[in-house]
C-alpha cells in the first residue's frame, strides 16, 4: 500500500515512515504543502497522512484545496490540537480520520487499514478472492486454509492488485506501491516479484496487459 506522509518534523516523520514500512506500507515522505501537492500530482496514493502544522500552509487549508479540486484520497490528519472544535473542523474540511499526537504506531496502522478498507468499499477487513484469503492488517495470506508466507514486497504487490478491482496498473504505479520513493528499484525487480507470485499462487492470478501493465486475473 502506497502512502503519502506530509510531516514537517524530521524526528517524527522519520519514525512514522520507518514504522509504517515495517508494517508493510510503502511511504513517500514530504515536509511541506508544496511538496505534498507535487507528490499527489505525480503519483497515485492509497491514502495520505497529513500533519496540520506545516511551515508553508495550514494543513486544513491544503486539505480543503485538495477536496475542492476533486482529490478523493482518504486523508488521516495528525495534529497536536485536541479540542472538539478542531476535530470537527478537520473532519468537515474533508478528513476521513483524525489522530492526536502522541499516538500509538499500532493505532495508526489499524486506522490506515480501516481507511483503505472503506476506500475500497469493503466492510470485511479480510479480502477473499477465490481460494485466496488475505488479511492486510495481520499481513497474512491463506490459500485454502493453508498459510502462505510471502516476502514484504510480494505481499505489497498482491495487495495492490487485489485492491485495484480489475483495473490495469502500470509498472510505475506498482513500483510506487511496492517500493515507495526511498528504496532503489532495479529495472527487472518488479518482473521477478510477479514471477514469484505466479509461481506460488498460480499463473492465472496476474495477467500481463501488453504495453500497459498488469491486471488481477481469474481467481485461483
Amino acid at each position, binding site marked *: 500500500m502506497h502512502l503519502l506522509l506530509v510531516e514537517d518534523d524530521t*524526528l517524527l516523520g522519520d*519514525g512514522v515512515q520507518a514504522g509504517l514500512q515495517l508494517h508493510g506500507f510503502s511511504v513517500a515522505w514530504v*515536509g511541506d504543502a508544496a511538496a505534498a501537492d507535487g507528490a499527489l500530482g505525480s503519483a497515485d496514493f492509497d491514502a495520505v497522512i497529513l500533519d496540520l*502544522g506545516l511551515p508553508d500552509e495550514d494543513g486544513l487549508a491544503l486539505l480543503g484545496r485538495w477536496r475542492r479540486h476533486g482529490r478523493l484520497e482518504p486523508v488521516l490528519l495528525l495534529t497536536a490540537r485536541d479540542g472538539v472544535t478542531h476535530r470537527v473542523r478537520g473532519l468537515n474540511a474533508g478528513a476521513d480520520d483524525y489522530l492526536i499526537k*502522541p499516538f500509538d504506531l499500532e493505532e495508526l496502522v489499524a486506522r490506515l487499514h480501516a481507511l483503505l478498507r472503506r476506500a475500497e468499499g469493503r466492510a470485511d477487513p479480510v479480502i477473499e478472492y477465490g481460494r485466496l484469503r488475505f488479511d492486510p492488517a495481520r499481513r497474512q495470506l491463506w490459500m485454502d486454509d493453508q498459510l502462505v508466507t510471502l516476502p514484504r514486497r510480494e505481499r505489497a504487490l498482491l495487495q495492490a492488485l487485489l485492491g485495484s478491482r480489475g483495473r490495469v496498473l502500470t509498472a510505475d504505479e506498482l513500483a510506487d506501491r511496492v517500493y515507495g520513493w526511498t528504496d532503489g528499484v532495479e529495472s527487472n525487480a518488479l518482473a521477478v516479484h510477479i514471477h514469484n507470485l505466479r509461481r506460488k499462487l498460480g499463473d492465472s492470478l496476474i495477467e500481463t496487459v501488453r504495453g500497459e501493465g498488469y491486471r488481477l486475473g481469474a481467481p485461483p
Partner: protein
Amino acid sequence: MRYHPSSLRGRLLLWLGVGLSALWLALALWLHGEVRDRVATVLDQRLAASARMVASLLDADSDLAATLSGAGALPSGGIACEISGLRGEVLARSGGAPDDALALPRDGFGERLAGGHRWRVYTVTQGAVRVTSAERMAGRTDFMRHVAWLLLAALSAGLLASLTLVYWAVGRALAPLSSLRRQLAERDAGEQRPLSAPVGAVELAAMVATLNQLLSRERAALARERQLTDDLAHELRTPLAAIRTQLQVAKIAHGERAEHARSVAEQASQRLGHSLDQLLALAREDGTLDDEGVPLVVLVDELLEEQAQAIGQRGLRVCRRDQGAGTPAAPTGLVRISLRNVIENAVRHSPEGARLTVVLSGSGAECAARIEDQGAGMSPQQRHQALERGWHNREGGRREGGQGLGLAIVATVMARTGGTVTLSAGAEGGLAVNLRWPRAGTV
C-alpha cells in the same frame, strides 16, 4: 444613614417620588389655604347680608322684633339673629341664639364667646337698634376639616397614580438598557459579532462603542492565547509523538534501524526537555512590575556569564557594546527570559570560533538590544514565519530540532512587556534579533 437604591429604576423612582410628593403637598397646602380664605369671605358676606336684611326690614316693620323672637330655633349651623338697644340691652333674638348678648360694641365683624360656643358675629346699627347676625365657628371648622380631608384623599390618589405612571414610564425609558443587558447575557465567550446599540438610546451609543472596543481587545487576547496554546501543544506533543513512534520502531526493527530509532528518540526527548524548561521559566514569571528594574547591560552580562560554558566550548568571541541603553520599563524577569532565549539561540547557531555581537543602545523613550550571530541565518520568508507563528529555522521545509519554543516565547513575552521583536539579516550572514522596550524614567 443614607439610602442608596441598588438599581437605576429604584433611584429614578425614589427621586421622582420625593419630588412629586413635595410638589403635591405644596399644591394641597396652597389650595387648602385658598379655599379656607374664600369660604370665610363668602360666609362673612352671607352673615353681613343677613344682618342688613333684618335691619332694613326693621325700618319697615316695627313689630319685627316680636316676630323674630317667636321664630323658634334655627337649624344648627344656621344663622342666629339678635336685636339690641344702643346700650346693649337685648330687645329680641331669634331661636338658636344664645342667652348671652352677641352684639359687638361697634359695627363690623368680630368673634364672641357666648352660651359656651364661639361665634362669628356681624353687627350693624340701624337707628336706635343694633342688629347682629351670628354663626357658630364650629360649623365653619367642620366644613374646613371636611375640605382638608377631601384634599388629602385627592392628593394621595393623585400621588399614587403619578408614581404608577412614573414606574411604568421609567421601565419603558430604560428598555434599551435591559435589551443591552440581555445581549450581553446571551453572548457566548469568543463571539465575533459586535454589540449593537439599542434603538432609541443615543446616549448608550458611546458606551456600546467602548464596550465593543473592549470586547474586540478581549477577542484578540483570546486568539493570541489560543495560538500560543496550539503552538505549545504542537511543540510538546510532536517530540512526544516522535519519541513514542521511534521507540515502537526500535522494538520491532533490528540492527542499524533500531539503533537509529533509539538515537532519534533521544534527540526528540532532548528537544522536549528544552521546550519544557522554557515553559517552566515562563510560568515562574508572573509579569508584575515589582522592582526598580535592572539596567540592560547588567542583565546581558549575567546571561553571557550563564552561557560562558557553551561559549567556551564553541570558542566564540563575544563582542558586547553598551551605548547607554539604560533600564527597560518592563518586569525584569520577562526581559531576562526574552534575552536568555535570544542569546541561547545565537550561541547554539554560531559556528565554532565565530563572533557573537550584542549591542545595547538607548534613544529617547526606548532601549534596545541587538544580538547578532554568524550562523546560517534565515531567509526573509523564514524570518517572517519565525515571528508569525513562533517557529524556528526550518531547513528545506523540515524543522531541524533544537529551537522549539524559543522565538514563540520571545514574541509572546515581548508583547506582554510592551516591547517588540524584529528579525533581520546579520551584517556577516547570520541572524540579527532586535529587541526593544520602553525605557524606564521616560514613561
